[in-house]
């Protein structure tokens, strides 16, 4: 039981971080960006490439840090990947979405499908279809609770790292949105873009910030998925539906809603693996989604629109 919850929270961490960016795009840029999942995949592979480059220059960077499976090289590469993925997200907007913005949300959604296909196939062409790993080091799960206590609990240090950094990232984002001028401007634009303009908020600046932050969070989520599972060029599309489920479940535009939605989807997936089998994990997330939407049509933290 406890193991299912822990596994669910770890899967949910990755989904939550990806869902926050997607939720921000939905509420501020005002369209469903189906290429957001691919940013997770690109973030993960950019980190792998940067880590390979860094460790080839300095082999010491590959040495694992303490109990973790990865070294300083991957952490530095993660930072590089965040920057590059943010730029990729911004480039997508500048080259594609910005030009189509006046055509309406449906055009943007269809364009995002095209962008997703292009990004996924470029990644497949660049990296090949064989799954890859950040580290070949095997990690032994640490027993935190014996089997006699609710089935026991074992987690790897990498999983604890992912959980901790997710909490730090989400808290940092919350403080940014709550207390910084840009963060408040983003919240204001999500609530009422017309009023935000007459208040003196530059809509283009807010949109740029949204893409950049969404890109950074997608890269972090992609790296976390790579650390806890593996890297596959199709990881973006595989995560896309859980991301949307988390956003809708939490309520569009709500950061904490996306986090909670991600964790619930993660828990549902984890429970379904134990109860009905891994092949039904995506379906289980959607059963939970439908059940919650029947009670709260605007999601857990969503406002009526």
């Amino acid at each position, binding site marked *: 039981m406890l193991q299912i919850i822990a596994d669910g929270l770890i899967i949910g961490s990755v989904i939550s971080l990806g869902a926050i960016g997607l939720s921000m795009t939905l509420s501020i840029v005002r369209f469903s960006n189906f290429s957001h999942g691919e940013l997770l995949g690109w973030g993960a592979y950019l980190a792998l490439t940067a880590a390979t480059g860094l460790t080839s220059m300095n082999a010491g960077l590959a040495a694992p840090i303490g109990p973790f499976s990865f070294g300083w090289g991957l952490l530095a590469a993660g930072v590089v990947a965040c920057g590059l993925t943010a730029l990729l997200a911004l480039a997508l907007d500048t080259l594609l979405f910005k030009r189509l913005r006046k055509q309406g949300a449906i055009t943007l959604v269809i364009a995002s499908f095209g962008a997703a296909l292009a990004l996924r196939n470029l990644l497949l062409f660049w990296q090949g279809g064989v799954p890859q790993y950040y580290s070949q080091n095997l990690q032994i799960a640490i027993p935190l609770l014996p089997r006699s206590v609710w089935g026991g609990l074992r987690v790897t240090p990498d999983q604890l790292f992912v959980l901790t950094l997710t909490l730090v990232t989400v808290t940092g984002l919350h403080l940014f949105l709550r207390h910084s*001028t840009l963060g*408040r*401007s983003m*919240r*204001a634009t999500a*609530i*009422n873009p*017309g*009023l*935000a*303009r*007459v*208040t*003196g*908020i*530059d*809509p283009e600046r807010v949109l740029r910030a949204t893409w950049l932050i969404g890109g950074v969070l997608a890269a972090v989520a992609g790296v976390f998925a790579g650390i806890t599972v593996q890297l596959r060029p199709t990881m973006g599309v595989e995560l896309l539906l859980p991301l949307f489920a988390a956003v809708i479940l939490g309520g569009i535009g709500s950061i904490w809603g996306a986090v909670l939605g991600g964790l619930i989807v993660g828990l549902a997936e984890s429970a379904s693996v134990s109860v009905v089998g891994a092949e039904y994990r995506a379906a289980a997330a959607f059963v939970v989604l439908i059940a919650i939407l029947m009670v709260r049509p605007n999601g857990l933290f969503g*406002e009526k629109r």
Partner: protein
Amino acid sequence: MNLALEIVDLQAGYEPGLLIVRGASLQIQKGEIFAILGPNGAGKSSLVKAVAGLVPIASGRNILDGRDITKTPAHQMVFNGLAFVPQTENVFVNLSVAENLELAASVMKANRRERVDPVYAMFPDLHRQRGLPAGQLSGGQRQMLAVARALIARPSLLILDEPSAGLSPKLVDQVFSKLREVRDSGVTVLLVEQNVKAALALADRAAVLVEGKERIVATSAALLADERIAALYLGRHTGRQPRKEPS
């Protein structure tokens, strides 16, 4: 001339070739309250939105304090001294009262307390309710917050689009009384109103807009006194019935 705003032969509309404002020209004096009146669909809201940069301008000019603001984007208007209060959805409902005001101050890159405290002094009710989400305020309080938010920018010209919409007569009196205070503090006020009687009681001067162009510009007293004008353009809003034309 001591002009706060000069609108020169303005043509504007949401779609190219579909003009709503058709050659309007107005001169708003510094320190006055000026009302734009007229029948539904006359283009009153579109005119002030065009001045605020929210409706595309086809031709003409807007001069604010001697500066041409015709091509200034809406988000830069506050930095030029023009604050706009929309008719509806004029507060950020999910943000608290304090956050609404502090956001306006921080966008101006101004000291928050320096800007927000004087506004709280003018609107003590808002100070009492500063922690409340703006969406939970009553209609009148929400309108007060919208005006307060606009004043944070310390504008020379405050434009309001139908500030009395949806308010009870008592609340209209309260809001309009605050607008007098705003004018007395040195801010020029330009408002669009459907509530003609209340608007003429408040404004120093007014214009009657018909089909996107001003037909009459006069003092409020003159407009109220002229029965023919009241019947033709202001109808029953004045409280008087238009005279029947002889058959």
